[in-house]
């Protein structure tokens, strides 16, 4: 049977709708690609699937029925990896789950399911890194602001942690690569994005917007960081393994 390429709007709901459509049309899927990434190919026209909330919910429900919340979470987190062809791995999982009597979530014998778990592990590591490496800077209007540039799109996964920790502060965590952030106003979290022309400015926070005592605390933190080092134990390799260089630009101690 002919294999068909499907395109979607790049959202998770969109992907689930596409998976639903592949069942409805009973087709073999070649690839599933965000429409923005699709380039003309020699292999015939793709089918575009519009996001359909009801379809997406039905797929989600099916996944939950077969693998519980663990499976629902696994697939969503893997989707946020933005890895090439992650859509096909997710489709594979859904197909396996629907066919099987058993819960396939922990079928580590299956290469593609194992691959999903490996991706999930990387996502977990990145979430943990963001819990650790977010560095807030206090602005004049008392908003604690942090810039991040994580390897994966983990912003939707980290808000809860910071909300529990800092419920009485106003804070903003902004992903400078993906150009959106989460803003907490002591009540709830909102996704925000700055207008196009401000993007460049947001590569670093300018000194003018910071609170008067902010630079002092950064100096104190840096000096603390340096004096707790034990030179006799120096181990640069281990240091870099824990704090890879790509994270340094937003770490005030580096």
């Amino acid at each position, binding site marked *: 049977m002919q294999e068909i390429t499907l395109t979607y709007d790049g959202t998770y709901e969109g992907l689930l709708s596409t998976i639903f459509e592949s069942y409805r049309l009973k087709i073999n899927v070649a690839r599933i690609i965000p429409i923005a990434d699709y380039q003309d190919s020699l292999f015939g026209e793709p089918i575009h699937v519009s996001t359909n909330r009801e379809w997406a919910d039905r797929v989600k429900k099916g996944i939950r029925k077969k693998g519980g919340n663990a499976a629902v979470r696994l697939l969503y987190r893997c989707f946020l990896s933005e890895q090439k062809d992650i859509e096909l791995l997710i489709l594979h999982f859904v197909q396996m789950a629907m066919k099987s009597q*058993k819960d*396939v979530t*922990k*079928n*580590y*014998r*299956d*290469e593609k399911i*194992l691959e999903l778990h490996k991706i999930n592990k990387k996502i977990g590591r990145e979430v*943990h890194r963001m*819990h*650790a*490496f*977010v*560095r*807030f*800077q*206090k602005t004049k209007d008392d908003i*604690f602001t*942090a810039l991040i540039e994580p390897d994966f799109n983990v912003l939707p996964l980290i808000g809860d942690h910071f909300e*529990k*920790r*800092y*419920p*009485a*502060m106003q804070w903003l965590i902004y992903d400078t690569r993906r150009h959106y952030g989460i803003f907490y106003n002591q009540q709830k979290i909102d996704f925000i994005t700055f207008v196009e022309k401000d993007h460049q400015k947001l590569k670093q926070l300018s000194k003018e917007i910071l609170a008067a005592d902010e*630079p*002092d*605390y950064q*100096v*104190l*933190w840096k*000096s*603390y*960081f340096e*004096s*707790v*080092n*034990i*030179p*006799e*134990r*120096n*181990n*640069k*390799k*281990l*240091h870099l*393994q*824990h*704090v890879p260089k790509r994270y340094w630009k937003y*770490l*005030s*101690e580096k």
Partner: protein
Amino acid sequence: MNERIKEKLEILSDAAKYDVSCASSGSKRKNTKDGMGNSTGMGICHTYTQDGRCVSLLKILLTNHCIFDCAYCVSRKSNDVKRAAFTVKEVVDLTMNFYQRNYIEGLFLSSGIFKNPDYTMERLVRIAKELRTIHKFNGYIHLKTIPGASEELMQEAGLYADRLSVNIEMPSELSLKKVAPEKDFKSVLEPMGYLKEKIAENKEERKKSRKAPLFSPGGQSTQLVIGASPEKDLEILTLADDLYKQKSLKRVYYSGYIPISDDNRLPVIHQPPLIRENRLYQADWLMRFYGFDLKDIVDDKHPDLDLTLDPKAAFALRNPAIFPIDINKADYEMILKVPGIGVKSAKKIISARKFGALREGHLRKLGLVWKRAKYFITCADPDFKYLGWKPEVIRQQISSSILTKAANSNQLSLFA
């Protein structure tokens, strides 16, 4: 900026850094709607020093003035170092501001002993109390218990702290007496015993009512200095095992002696014994998470851990009758005994084999250390065999790969 604060911070964090405890885990403390901070049970390392150690807490001394003269300690009375002391307000301000910026998980506060133990302890407790009650701080607080402080103060400390610790430092009474004339084991073990009872009582109360106040929910820990005294690993691990079993300690830390002192009560060494320190941690993990007994790891015949072999591999090679282990049939407990298989990969194996027998091809991808584990197992492939279960051959293979690795990273001198 206040330069004096910066200088104090440098002096008093430099003096605190030899206490290796870094954990911010093991305690659960919920935040309040108007509060600051929480502990979820999982620690977070916010950054790592150049030597690769985790920075999780603001770890400082309240002061490095000290009336004691313990040879292993930089802050000992007879040492010629700059002295400083924080005020209560300064510590509170640093903790809150560092925490707000997500630099730290909380505060680790220790102190040199000034005037007397109660006077010192009273100040540590006051800082914790101010953070908890006035500033509604719910992040992690680790307080040192000062040996000789009153039970009332320890009791109060437990109400505000997530973890309490008192360091034994020297692994035997004899060695401790030699380097710390003012201390003995009793002065350290007594407060531990008192806190153990209090922590256990509190657990019972919390079972009855979730509203009962927390008492040091992260338990207590201690530290042993390695390589500054003649004790064998057998003595060190026996002490640790007793502390886990009899004092219900959460953690024993092993700190390779760093020659910070030219005090002639201590040996002259050129390199801290980092490999030995690492082996002790491995052994400690085996006792706590892998179901090993002390006697499986060290005994009178093998009183020291093998530096060229991790203790799990050493156990396997001393007990060839137990191996190889059949990955497709063995219990979880037995699979955990295989060198190169950790808790996570053991659990994966148990889950995966429900879907069919596991072969080498599956195992290689499961995240275990294949080049280690392969010598000690069988799986669904017929004629599966590496080095034919000959312990002496396997030993040579494994330890030569460890030595090569050490040579490549210029750590060979550490074996000396």
